[in-house]
């Protein structure tokens, strides 16, 4: 019996080893027919075969869906034959890499990405570029050396300042505030927070406002809700919360609207009008800010087209036409700005549907 079992294991191992050898062989032999390996995905790709793929930070995020909707429209208007959206379910650092790899292998012409980590995606993006793809970062930048262009919704500083301004108006210019952000490593979030901290410190208008905490809801609804709850318990004197993320502000608003802090603790940040409408109308939130996210995807698609056509390279001073939105100019470090942020309150929120 023992012998039998031993023999079984031995043969299983034999089979395994053979199979591993076959696996290796199977993967290496048919090298020639792979279309992507041939470098066909160059800027001279005929217009009919052009493909663009959007890789958001994560799927199933309402904000991202609006951006991607604009991207689809833009890709169609810019004449791409195929536009795809792929992405991870979790916004973790390295989760986007295998998607970039798959696009490299599929020979996609333009990859538009919102990076979860500016550096973790770099080696994969560089490999995609070697294969001939153009890389446009949007929403959240990658390390500048591994993309051709970064399409930013707004000037980061403007976004930060408008939020500080709104919260200051609502709490009467003094008191304790907290920030409820997305993930601790999100490039865009951290840049905004940095500007907010600098503004609070340097602008005498805000000298009585004290930033007491920064917490991270990881762009997860439940976690953001719990963090909001935790903030209220940890800081009983808290007068306002800034949540520069659509998931965070919606979760916080949901918590506040059902709690005794409703209308007493001010909440602002970056939110989607459709998600925030109820909270603006019930008085939980007075005013918040955002841009039209669809424009971000739209401009990114046209930027990709211009790079692919070779009409620009992404260096400072380059110009391209973004369809109906007119001409855009590339600024320092290859950054393109879409437009200024908008304030939403009960007077204008019904005019927006996203």
């Amino acid at each position, binding site marked *: 019996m023992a012998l039998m079992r031993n023999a079984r294991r031995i043969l299983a191992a034999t089979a395994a*080893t053979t199979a*591993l050898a076959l696996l290796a062989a199977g993967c290496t032999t048919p090298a020639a027919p792979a*279309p992507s390996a041939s470098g066909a995905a160059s800027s001279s790709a005929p217009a009919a075969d052009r493909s663009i793929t959007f890789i958001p930070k994560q799927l199933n995020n309402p904000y991202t869906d609006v951006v991607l909707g604009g991207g689809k429209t833009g890709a169609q208007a810019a004449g791409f034959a195929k536009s795809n959206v792929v992405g991870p379910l979790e916004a973790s*650092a390295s989760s986007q890499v295998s998607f970039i*790899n798959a696009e490299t292998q599929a020979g996609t012409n333009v990859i538009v990405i919102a990076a979860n980590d500016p550096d973790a995606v770099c*080696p994969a993006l560089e490999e995609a570029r070697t294969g001939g793809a153009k890389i446009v970062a949007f929403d959240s930048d990658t390390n500048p050396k591994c993309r051709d262009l970064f399409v930013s919704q707004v000037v980061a500083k403007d976004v930060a300042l408008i939020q500080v301004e709104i919260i200051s108006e609502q709490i009467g210019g003094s008191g304790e505030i907290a920030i409820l952000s997305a993930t601790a490593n999100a490039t865009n979030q951290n840049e905004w927070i940095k500007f907010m901290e600098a503004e609070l410190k340097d602008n005498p208008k805000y000298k009585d406002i004290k930033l007491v905490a920064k917490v991270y809801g990881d762009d997860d609804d439940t976690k953001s809700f719990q963090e909001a709850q935790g903030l209220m318990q940890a800081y009983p004197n808290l007068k306002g919360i800034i949540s520069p993320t659509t998931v965070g502000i919606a979760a916080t608003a949901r918590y506040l609207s059902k709690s005794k802090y409703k209308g007493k603790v001010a909440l602002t940040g970056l939110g989607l009008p459709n998600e925030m409408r109820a909270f603006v109308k019930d008085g939980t939130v007075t005013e918040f800010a955002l841009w039209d996210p669809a424009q971000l995807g739209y401009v990114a698609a046209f930027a990709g087209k211009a790079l692919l056509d070779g009409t620009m390279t992404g260096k400072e001073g380059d110009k391209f036409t973004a369809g109906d939105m007119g001409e855009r100019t590339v600024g320092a470090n290859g950054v393109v700005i879409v437009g200024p942020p908008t304030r939403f309150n009960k007077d204008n929120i019904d005019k927006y549907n996203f």
Partner: protein
Amino acid sequence: MSEVLSQEVAAGRSGAARVMTSRGAIMWYLVLAVLVLLSLVVPGFASPRTAGFLLLDVIPILMIALPMTLVIITAEIDLSVASTAGLTSAVMGVLWAGGMNIYLVLLICLIVGLLAGAFNGIMITAVGLPSLAVTIGTLALFRGLALVVIGDNAVANFPRELTTWATSKIGATGIPVFMVIVLVLIAIFAVVLHLTPFGRGLFAMGFSKEAAEFVGIDVGRSKFYLFVATGLVSSMAGIFWTLRYSSARSDNASGLELAVIAAVLLGGVSIFGGRGSVPGAVAGVLMIGIINYALRLQRISDVVLIIVTGTLLIASVVGPSIFEWMRKVRHDRRVHRDLTNPAKSSTSPAS
């Protein structure tokens, strides 16, 4: 691997048919069948790029799956592996950013893994707590320590020659150079489990701890070694992860423990202990990796992907149980028939 093979062939005597129908072997037939099928069906799948990208994706899972197989065979579990990898990554980032020699950093990282594993091992064997409880605790603890060590920062400027090496391929084959290390690990764990008295002891422990102790196996010490090995290999996976993505962060490799355990179970290792093989576990890892990769190449959403993985896992765990149950039902029915109808049963042996 070929050394193992020749030894095993030399030792093999009989029962070829049974071995070729073992769970591990079946998994390999399935992996091959899936590979052939996908090469035909999915455009662009049959390319050296696939080998490269696919293997780079599965290497961390593959590495940790090896000690995990041994741990699960002894009817224990280690849920802290991904956190150990994350802690290693954090330590690696902070020490490198602090200006330490990179090879010294790597050495310290491995020691961190050893210590993490030893901590689990002591709590489980010396203190006598269940591994599930201990490693749920260290799952949180090690991830927390990673946050303490590196905080919200990310360290990205690792030496370029090392990060390039981590993703480099062997010639034109597309197979990552790092696979050589992984193959050595596979060989070591396969030999230890299947060809040594220590390995046989692990199966015995999985079947019955008391019986194993009774025949003179030092259960505590064996398990301690296993958890140390798991910690060490997890830190190696953490180092690989950090170099591959050239980014040291506290959330690296999070959630990896479930991917590892799913793959190991799919590879035919019994969660109740006492059954399983290293080749089977390797096949399980490759199976999940290959299917995920092909679905991604087809741009099929990750939502579908996790459903597929989950279904495969359930099927692999439930399948054998149903098979076992059907055999039992048939056996019971036969016994019942033999008992109620002795006249007929006297002729049945002939048929």
